[in-house]
């Protein structure tokens, strides 16, 4: 399908690298804005009496939200390329329009959610809106621009049949799914509930008691980005980068074999390798960390609740 194998491999590597940047920026953006599932705790805290100064960007789950941002960026880029604008410039304009829409959605979500919490005495802090929205927009720009550039490479250099906007939709949803799956637990448990025990889940009774104060002063959502960009962001980037890289790599390299079945077999082998790695991680954790309660280990029936 791709005439020049060397070019194909180079494009694959570049697309994987762009995807890695996109994943890292996406997760950092969603953590700064408290989008996705950890948002439920930001929403819950005032109801439990914990007034906070955390951004509440409840646009929707990350997958549909990024499905829109990336599809929109790709669509605008496509439209400008259709009227003969330079491709790179078109991609930048597309990402800029998408970021504008993202920023507006972020502000309406914060205002809406917070104003609806008036009963619990949670005020609207408009300085949060001014300082945090712009930071999420900057991260979103990086995520959108890299994703739609990657999609453009797939169309222009690898010859995927889907038009650019449809690829933006497909990979945007996949980006949101990968980023939220990998990044959410780290932000939700490790950061929002930093005061809870390390190495254990947050007890359901502690729900809503999120950390609201910082080392000095009050915790801002920007601190959350600072924290999660150390692990959750890069891990999400790795996740999305691996997905894109292996998806392209197995096709570009192995599709010529066995009438296309080579790519399928390569994919199955990669899945099995990841399965073994996952099993290794799981058993490593069990043996290294050990059980929480020795008594329960002897009599598992009693521990079941």
């Amino acid at each position, binding site marked *: 399908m791709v005439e020049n194998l060397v070019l194909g491999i180079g494009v694959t590597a570049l697309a994987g690298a762009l995807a890695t940047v996109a994943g890292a920026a996406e997760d950092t953006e969603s953590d700064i804005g408290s989008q996705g*599932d*950890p*948002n*439920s*705790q930001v929403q819950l805290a005032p109801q439990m009496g914990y007034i906070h100064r955390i951004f509440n960007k409840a646009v*929707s*789950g*990350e*997958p549909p939200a990024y499905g829109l941002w990336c599809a929109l960026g790709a669509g605008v880029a496509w439209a400008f390329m259709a009227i003969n604008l330079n491709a790179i410039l078109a991609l930048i304009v597309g990402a800029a329009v998408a970021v504008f829409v993202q920023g507006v959605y972020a502000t309406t979500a914060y205002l809406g959610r917070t104003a609806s919490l008036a009963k619990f005495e949670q005020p609207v802090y408009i300085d949060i809106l001014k300082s945090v929205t712009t930071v999420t927009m900057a991260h979103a720009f990086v995520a959108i621009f890299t994703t739609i550039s990657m999609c453009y490479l797939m169309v222009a250099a690898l010859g*995927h*049949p*889907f038009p650019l906007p*449809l*690829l933006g*939709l497909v990979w945007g949803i*996949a980006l949101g*799914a*990968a980023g939220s*799956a*990998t990044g*959410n*637990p780290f*932000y*939700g*448990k490790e950061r929002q509930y930093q005061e809870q025990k390390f*190495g*254990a*889940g*947050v*007890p*359901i*009774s502690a729900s809503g008691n999120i950390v609201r104060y910082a080392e000095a002063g009050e915790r801002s959502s920007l601190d959350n980005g600072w924290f999660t960009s150390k692990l959750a962001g890069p891990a999400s980037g790795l*996740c999305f980068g*691996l*997905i894109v890289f*292996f*998806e392209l790599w*197995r*096709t570009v390299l192995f599709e010529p074999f066995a009438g*296309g079945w080579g*790519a*399928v077999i390569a*994919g199955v082998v*990669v899945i099995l390798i*990841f*399965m073994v790695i*996952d099993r290794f*991680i*799981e058993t490593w*954790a069990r043996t290294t*960390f050990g*059980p*929480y*309660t*020795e008594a*329960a*280990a002897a009599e*598992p*029936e009693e*521990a079941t609740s």
Partner: protein
Amino acid sequence: MSALGGAAAGGEGINPTASVIGIVILLVALGITFFIASTGGAIALIGIIIGGALIGFGVHFVPVGGAPAAMGQAPGIATGVAMLAAGAGLAGLFGGAWAAELGFAVALGAGAVGGGLMMAITCMMVNVIYVFGMGIPSASGKVDKDPITGDTFPEYKSQGTEGHGLPFISYVGGVIGGTLGGLGGTLIYVELLAVYEAALPVIYNAPLEEILPVAVSLAGIFAVGMFLVNAVLTAYNITGTIEGPHDPKFKRFPRAIIASAVASAVCGMVAIMVVAL
């Protein structure tokens, strides 16, 4: 997905009358398609129905914990079920559409592997974060023993939670779910693409190469639309969260297969009518 959970009314068991009515609707849709688009259309619609049923079945395998999973309060992946399945299924559709010109079977294989690969990597990274980032081992809340590996869970479940992480059975469920989703989505796409590639050049009197983008786009957007309809219907069936194939909610899958098959039959009929009328 969002902060919403809430107790849903979804009861157990199959409603026999409604299911029979559903199957009648399916047969009527099939009959109408046969009438207006002859045998070729009807065979394509059967493919679409199977694809939809595969998506509905596949979503049940995907371990999704929703908001509690983000706090390590419940096992599974911390996002919405419909959207995670869509992420995997559409990644599969990407692979399947790419391989579409190599033949029916290869395209289906590529779609299935694409979806499975996406879930295999995502689920592994979830465990990487849980274990190396948060120091939490995997434990299921619904069963005491992993049906595959035989690991016991109660002693690895931290206090006050319903379990956390992705036990191996959930991991395998995720991969199966992604595979079935990718397979189903690609099946819908390939069937529709064949219908449009055959019909559009005749209707608009244009060579296939010129009108191919329209056929690809139409088949692609319909596949995405039907995927989302089936995934959301299934999400309604499992009311939000599920741990994987070992979860008691998994037993609800027959009615989701009926619902997805009927929904795909009706949507597929309409999609075929776009070029048959």
